[in-house]
């Protein structure tokens, strides 16, 4: 073999590897994102009876399900972050949910009610820590018209709206007050939330 032909073979091998890598990359990346999107639908969430028979039924009573204007928030809209890095982090945490699905931690109504407080507290903690980020995908202090709110709500929102307008951080975040708006509240939630500083 002459040095030039050896070089040619090496080049060919390198380019083949590169091409193979690119194709494999596209397939894996696409597949990864596709499965992320697949598991990010309401249909997927309520394919488990734990979600369908409990929290999904409760959601249907609320304004986030049916309302005047016909906008609907589905499970992932509130429970899965939209930004990629946070979404992946939440998805990794969700592997614990698969484990508990196999254990059957909440597979009856009674077990679900017993475990509801734990689940609610963890979700409230998550929302408090991220400044109710998922609420803010749709709701903003800046776009609130206090005139159109009822007087009680308007009074409570007022200082925070002005803080937001002035570019300051509002002292309260949505979940501080708006607990249990899409699902029923667990027994003893008020004391537990106070204890956890929520």
């Amino acid at each position, binding site marked *: 073999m002459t040095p030039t032909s050896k070089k040619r073979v090496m080049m060919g091998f390198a380019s083949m590897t590169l091409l193979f890598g690119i194709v494999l990359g596209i397939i894996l990346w696409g597949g990864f994102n596709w499965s992320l999107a697949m598991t990010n639908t309401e249909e997927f969430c309520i394919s488990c009876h734990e979600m369908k028979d409990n929290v999904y039924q409760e959601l249907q009573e*609320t*304004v986030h399900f049916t309302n005047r204007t016909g906008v609907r928030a589905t499970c992932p809209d509130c429970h899965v972050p939209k930004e990629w890095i946070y979404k992946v982090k939440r998805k990794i945490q969700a592997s614990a949910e698969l484990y508990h699905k196999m254990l059957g931690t909440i597979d009856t109504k009674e077990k679900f*009610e017993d475990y*509801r407080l734990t689940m609610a507290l963890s979700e409230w903690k998550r929302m408090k820590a991220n400044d109710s980020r998922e609420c803010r995908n749709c709701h903003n202090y800046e776009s609130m018209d206090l005139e159109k709110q*009822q*007087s*009680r709500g308007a*009074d409570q929102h007022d200082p925070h709206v002005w803080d937001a307008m002035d570019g300051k951080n509002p002292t309260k975040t949505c979940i501080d007050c708006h607990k*249990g708006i899409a699902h*029923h*509240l*667990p*027994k003893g*939630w*008020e004391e537990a939330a106070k204890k956890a500083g929520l």
Partner: protein
Amino acid sequence: MQRYSNNNDYSVQHGLMEAVMKKVILTTVAGAVMMIQAPLAMSGDLASLRGDNKLEVEAQMFEAKKPLQVEGGFKRSWDLQPPQIPHDISKDRVSLQENTCIRCHSKENHEKEKAPEIGKSHYMTRDGKELTKLSTRRYFCRQCHAPQADAPALVENTF
């Protein structure tokens, strides 16, 4: 003699049969008349659950009334009247697990939420023993407290 009387017996029996047959025919005729008349009477005097609404015409929709929102609440009609609810409660839930009314009206929260406080009597047992939590016999708020709508009274009331 024997035969005569036998004949007589027969004629008596025959007369009886005739009477029975007459009765049967009468009852049958009367029954038939009733059966024809009954549905007629029903459509005239008695109303079915559907009322006078015809099957092929859609039922009239009732006008849904929105609950009244009144700043400061309703005045009581008498001293011990359970105060009426001056706001929408369609989103409120009272169950074994939760009672969303006491989010605002409880001893702890009413000041912060600027809501009327639950009466002291609601934190007592029937023997007058004071409780730290809402008494279970007062837990179901809507047993006594009702929201109001601006609708004409169904029955005249001169109270």
